[in-house]
Each structure stands twice: as C-alpha cells, then as structure tokens.
C-alpha cells in the first residue's frame, strides 16, 4: 500500500495536483513520508517537549528582535524622510480633493439656468399659485410665512423635531448629574468641568449692560415671533433672538438666578407642549382644510395681528422650541445642566 502511494506521488498527475495546491512543497513531502514510514525508534516525549520549548523561546526572541528592528527602521523613516514624504502626500491629497470639489461644484453651477430668468424650472405654476393666491388662502401678508407654516408646514414640524432631538442627544452626552454617586461623574464634578465654581458673578459692566439689553432683546424676539405673518421674521429667527436674550441674562447673572425661571422641567414641558400643539394643529388642518375644504379656522383680515389662521400660534410654538433648545444647548455646554 505504502509503496504504491509513494510510487503514485512521483507521477505527473500527482505533481500537477501538488502544483495546483499552493503551499504543497518539500516540507509536506517530508511529513507525508514521515507519517507513511514508521520511525526507527520511538521518540522520547519529554525530550520532544524540551526541544519544542527551546525552539519556541528562540523563535520568540528572534521575533522580538525582528520587531524591534522593524520598529526602529520605521521610527527613523518617519522622523526623517518619511515625515517629508507623508507631509507632501497629505498636501497633494488635500490639493487634489479641493481641486476636484471646486471642479464638480463649478461644473454643477455651469449647468444651472441663469438666475432670475423666465424660463428657469423654478418659475412654475406652484410659485405662481403661491404668489397669486397665497394671501387669499393663508391670510398671511408675509408670503414666506404662509409657505413655511401653511403650504409646507410639515417640513417645519420636521425641523422643530430635529432641533428637539438634537437637544435630547446633547442632554444625554453632556448632562452632569450632581446626585450621581458613580465615580466618573464625581470625578468630573471634582475637576470642575462645569462652570458652577465661577459663581456668584460680580461683573458690573456685564450686569449693567445686560440689565438694559435683555428686556429689549426679549421684546424684539417676541415682536418677531408675533409678527411673523405680517412682516419678516417668524419662529426660527424669533426663537433664536429670545434665546440670545436668555443667554445674555444667564451670562450676566449666573445659573442660580436663571434657574429660578428656567428649569429642566420647564424646558421639557414647553418643548413637549409646543411640539404637541404643532402636531395636533397641523394634523387638524391637514385633514380638515386640505383640498379646498373649510377647516373652520377664521383667516381674519389680512394685516391685523390676529389673522391668518394658525400661522401665528404655530410661529409661537416653533419659536418656543427653538428658544428652549438653544438655551439648553448653552447651559449644557457651560455646566452640564440647567
């Protein structure tokens, strides 16, 4: 049997098979012959183990030395020629990326129709309808507000929700809970990673100017919010102005005073009720007021402050969500809580 096999191993087909299989070399031949033919004498197991151990340690040392050598070479290369080469490569890649970006953007712009011409695709029946019938259908003098909060109100709901979700994510990441007894949190508090230890504040100039400016900013924000359907402005800008006034107050007078009227609870309730009101109101008008049906919400006289149906309450809801979100962003970044 063994004779036939060794004979077969020398034949061309076997050699071809061997060639086909990668890694089948002289060592495999040796192993096969060693298995096929019994050894002259039974090997000693202990001696074999010793042999293996020796070989193992030798191999380990050799690999360590090789590693050190490679590391040394790499370090030297990275500190001399390699640094230059890599820097050059990075500059080259950055230039390539920038150039290709500029090329593709310019290419896109070159395909766009000229700005403000009659034949551009944006001049279609939709825009004509908005301009001609916008005042009649939404009751808003500011066509932009009519578009954002009436025709395209669903988009605005999504935007407000995105802001609220972003605030929640920042809350999860940055909140510092003083009652948390866990070691990492206590360490964070001890390190003074929040700005609580700067209080109380005694900055005369800041407090004086904030005393004058905060009411004016808040008033302007409320004006922009309530006037969104009559003039430029609306939820997002009004909310941003409101929150900037709040942030100014917070900076001037500290967290303790700001915390008296703006707590975590208030943030949650205001956001929840604003978003909920927005969703309910818009769902009502989508189901009841679409396709020329009468929703039962009076549009009022165009130009009066109480007009244009749902646009003003929706503006206020969006503005409250934006103001709360921006303010809580700031508070979380400053001290990890309200």
């Amino acid at each position: 049997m063994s004779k036939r096999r060794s004979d077969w191993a020398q034949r061309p087909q076997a050699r071809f098979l061997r060639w086909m299989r990668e890694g089948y070399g002289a060592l495999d031949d040796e192993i096969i012959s060693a298995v096929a033919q019994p050894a002259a004498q039974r090997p000693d197991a202990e001696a074999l183990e010793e042999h293996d151990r020796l070989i193992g340690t030798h191999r380990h040392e050799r690999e360590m030395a090789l590693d050190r050598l490679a590391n040394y070479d790499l370090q030297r290369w990275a500190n001399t020629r390699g640094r230059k080469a890599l820097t050059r490569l990075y500059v080259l890649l950055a230039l390539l990326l920038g150039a290709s970006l500029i090329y593709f953007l310019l290419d896109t712009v070159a395909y766009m129709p000229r700005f403000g011409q009659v034949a551009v695709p944006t001049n279609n029946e939709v825009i004509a309808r908005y301009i001609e019938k916008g005042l009649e259908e939404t009751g808003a003098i500011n066509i932009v507000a009519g578009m954002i909060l009436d025709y395209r109100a669903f988009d605005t709901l999504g935007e407000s929700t995105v802001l609220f979700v972003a605030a929640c994510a920042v809350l999860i990441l940055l909140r510092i809970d003083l009652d948390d007894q866990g070691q990492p949190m206590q360490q964070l508090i001890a390190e003074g990673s929040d700005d609580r230890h700067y209080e109380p504040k005694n900055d005369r100039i800041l407090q004086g100017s904030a005393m004058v400016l905060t009411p004016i900013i808040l008033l302007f924000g409320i004006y922009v919010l309530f006037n969104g359907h009559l003039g430029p402005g609306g939820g997002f800008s009004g909310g941003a102005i409101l929150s900037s006034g709040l942030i100014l107050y917070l900076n001037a007078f500290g967290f303790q005073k700001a915390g008296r009227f703006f707590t975590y609870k208030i943030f949650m309730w205001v956001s929840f009720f604003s978003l909920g009101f927005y969703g309910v109101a818009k769902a009502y008008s989508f189901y009841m007021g679409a396709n020329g049906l009468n929703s039962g919400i009076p549009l009022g006289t165009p130009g009066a402050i109480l007009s244009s149906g749902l646009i003003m309450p929706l503006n206020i809801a969006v503005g409250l969500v934006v103001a709360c979100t921006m303010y809580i962003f700031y508070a979380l970044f400053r001290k990890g809580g309200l």
Partner: protein
Amino acid sequence: MSFVKIALLGMLIVCALGVSLTRNLLTSLIIYMAYSLIMAVIWMLLESPDLAITEAAVGAGITSVLFFVTLKKIHAIKGDRDHEQAQK
C-alpha cells in the same frame, strides 16, 4: 448699489479665506461672525429680509456663542487655562 454689492461680496470672500487661513481659533471665529453679518446684509440687498433676520440671529448670534462655549470647553481659547488655575 452695485458697487456696494461688489464690495460686500469681496469682503465675503476675504472673510471666508480668513476663517480658513487664521491659526488662532478665536480669531477665526470672530471672522466667521463677521462673515455671517455680511451675509445678512447681502440677504437684505437681495430682498429677502426673512433670511436676513434668521442669518443675523442664528448665524452670527447663536452659532458663534455655541462655538465660543465649545472652544472654552476644549481649552482652545488662549490664556483660558491660566485664568482657571489662578481662580483655583
């Protein structure tokens, strides 16, 4: 009017280059605020006051404030660390 527009657009480009070329993060942030303000004026000239108000409030106001706080958080504002140690 056209001269004003060209001047504003030129300042816009200068500001955009300045933001990316300045080494100091605080300086580049202030240039970014200026960029937003110029952009708000340009929106105004393009007859879209809605966008102008939003740009001024969000771009120049809130975003910059959040950037400032972030820089403070990562101790990127120069002299911030020394100030903090002096407080302790």
